[in-house]
């Protein structure tokens, strides 16, 4: 008779010494998930519900938000937590639907690379962003640029 293991039976037992990464991954998904609910619901409310919603989003809107360090840090924290949460969730699917081997390593490598590149790119964009680039038409820029 085929023995069906309990659904939570790990493929490999946890290491006896050193860091149990799967346990910390499990904890991370729950901890980051709770924080992401606050960050993403706040993001969706300010960008889609307030005023004219999605119709009001343009360069000036983003420039106005990121002139405030509060929204810079909000968005950077959301970027890091969401990409790690998403990539780790996708890793679970790769573990479930592929067998160990080269293809599984390639898929996990692609997930890691995508998350790492976008985290670096996004963080640089938020903190090196210039809301009033020289030579751009004033009507495309945030209203506070006109004073300069």
């Amino acid at each position, binding site marked *: *008779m085929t023995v069906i293991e309990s659904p939570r039976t790990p493929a490999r037992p946890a290491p006896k010494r050193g860091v149990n990464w799967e346990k910390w991954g499990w904890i991370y998904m729950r901890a980051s*998930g*709770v924080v992401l609910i606050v960050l993403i619901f706040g993001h969706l409310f300010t960008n*889609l519900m307030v005023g004219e919603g999605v119709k009001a989003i343009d360069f000036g809107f983003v420039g106005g938000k990121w002139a405030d360090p509060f929204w810079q840090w909000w968005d950077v924290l959301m970027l890091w937590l969401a990409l790690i949460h998403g990539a780790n969730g*996708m890793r679970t699917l790769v573990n479930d639907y592929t067998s160990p081997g080269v293809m599984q390593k390639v898929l996990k490598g692609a997930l890691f690379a995508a998350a790492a590149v976008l985290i670096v790119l*996004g963080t640089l964009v938020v903190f090196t*962003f210039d809301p009033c*680039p020289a030579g751009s038409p004033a009507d*495309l820029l945030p209203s506070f640029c006109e004073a300069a």
Partner: protein
Amino acid sequence: MSEASTRTLTASTKPAQQRPGGTLYRGREGMWSWVLHRITGVAIFFFLLVHVLDTALVRVSPEAYNAVIGTYQTPIMGLGEVALVGAIVFHAFNGLRVILVDFWSWATRHQRVLFYVVIALWVVTMLAFVPRHLINVFSH
């Protein structure tokens, strides 16, 4: 073990009214919660990849960013945003359900009820979001 004795064992250990399912997961609320959590999670992940790239265009030029973000304001993408927010809201509330089921024995016993609580909260949240969003998308 012979077929006959297996049948006898199965019959004696299971209530008569419970029909055996075709798969390990047997359908019902727990399975659909799990399936929807996966599907919405994958959808949100791929949107996130695109969304970081389109937002990064603010670093290229105001014209480049406005051209791409303008495509998010068309009626078809407006409907896509309803689907995206629907996926996010389900994943969020069902994620809280998963946490409760993991840490609280009452929630483990009542996970089926909690699935309907998730659906109810999803409906309420979407009723608050969808009309306002569609008015923004289809007016002006």
